[in-house]
């Protein structure tokens, strides 16, 4: 972990580094008091060039729970970007004020540009439809806690598998483990892109099945990862309206599911999971939110340690 300076994509992390982060997050959950002052006097800058309340609040809560402080902005209009400042210059300037940066940007690759110009660690908090590594880490922590590990799992991904970056990223992360089986459930128009199938699943020798039927493989699933059809990824509103309600998970669709199935969702949900599912013990999506805060705490600690900012 000592060489890690930034986190742009989850593939920047080795399997061992991910396991270290999960171990730290689990220790934070078990012993929060031990970590309450770890970042005392340190500042996290949350540079959100597009709104994402949940991710920003998660980073802020994570830093506060480590005893640190937070500064930043929540939309491009309240930043110097509105005056035409480049990402590179913003990163150089903010490095003078903060010890670590979490950046969300609508343009793909912007956090990499920031990392190349920053003197403090940069965390990619989402860059367009490209990467969102801390969501993947939150998903991995949730799977580790719910399933006890990552091997021999049958995972169903449902909804927007074309634009859903969390799906691509989680598939990539899980394909490093033995015994993964993937069920891809989507309408024809939102199927997993062939480059993900070829470059990740086929390369790793992962068995996968494509279907349009949500219930067909339900009894076999250990995890069902639901996704929202994201309006912001469509250039054409008609396509969005046609596809947005393709799959809605209701209690009757879970009748044949395993008793220990974990239903996950990166949130926000619109209507793809009925609120009645929230009471079902198999619903894990709010646990994912909480786990997201803990894994971000672990990540902030590791990056600040590797930068020599904290001991």
């Amino acid at each position, binding site marked *: 972990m000592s060489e890690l300076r930034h986190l742009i994509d989850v593939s920047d992390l080795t399997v061992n580094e991910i396991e270290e982060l999960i171990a730290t997050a689990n220790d934070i959950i078990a012993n929060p008091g031990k970590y309450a002052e770890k970042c005392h006097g340190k500042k996290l800058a949350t540079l959100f060039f597009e709104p994402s309340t949940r991710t920003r609040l998660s980073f802020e809560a994570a830093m506060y729970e480590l005893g640190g402080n937070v500064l930043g902005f929540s939309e491009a209009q309240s930043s110097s970007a509105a005056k035409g400042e*480049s*990402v*590179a210059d913003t990163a150089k300037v903010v490095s003078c004020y903060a010890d670590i940066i979490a950046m969300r*940007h*609508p*343009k*793909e*690759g*912007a956090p*990499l*540009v920031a990392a190349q110009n920053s003197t403090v660690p940069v965390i990619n908090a989402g*860059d*367009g*439809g*490209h990467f969102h590594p801390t969501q993947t880490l939150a998903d991995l922590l949730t799977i580790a806690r719910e399933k006890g590990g990552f091997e021999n799992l049958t995972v169903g991904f449902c909804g927007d598998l074309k634009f859903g970056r969390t799906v691509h990223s989680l598939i990539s992360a899980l394909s490093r483990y033995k015994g993964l089986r993937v069920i891809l459930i989507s309408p024809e128009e939102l199927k997993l892109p062939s*480059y993900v199938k070829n470059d990740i699943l086929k390369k790793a020798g992962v068995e996968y099945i494509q279907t349009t039927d949500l219930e067909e493989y339900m009894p076999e699933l250990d995890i069902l990862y639901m996704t929202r059809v994201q309006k912001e990824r469509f250039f054409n509103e008609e396509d969005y309206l046609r596809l947005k309600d393709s799959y809605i998970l209701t209690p009757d669709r879970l009748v044949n599911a395993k008793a220990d199935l974990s239903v996950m969702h990166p949130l926000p949900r619109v209507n793809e999971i009925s609120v009645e599912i929230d009471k079902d013990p198999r619903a894990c999506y709010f646990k994912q939110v909480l786990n997201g805060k803990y894994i971000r705490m672990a990540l902030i600690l590791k990056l600040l340690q590797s930068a020599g900012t904290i001991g």
Partner: protein
Amino acid sequence: MNIDSIKNGTVIDHIPAGRGMKLYELLGLDKLDCPVAIIKNAVSSQMGRKDIIKIDADIPVSFDIIGYIAPNVTVNIIKGGKLIEKKSIELPETLIDVIKCKNPRCITSTEQELKHIFRLDDPEKRVYRCAYCDTKAE
């Protein structure tokens, strides 16, 4: 057809037929005021047909651009009328400002000062991806 041999300069040989003009453009040879010859569809015992570019001046050329457009070409460096170096060019690992990323969501689409960097992702299929957004080069 006869093209005079050159005294000092570069001969790019074994360019696959039809790629000579593209290479001429990308190397910026149209901006030179020295003699430059493009020979198209020359007969080749190895390739059937090939293109050749002769630059009659001692100026540096980008091997990355040559490797990207026409891997496996031969670059002959001529000095004093003699062949002093013969280089076989391979597919470059990185392309800097050779091609542009066409993804409208890429940071390079709005930040003009950024270099367009592509990395070789699959040498067999000659696939390059943008270093910023991972979009495949066309």
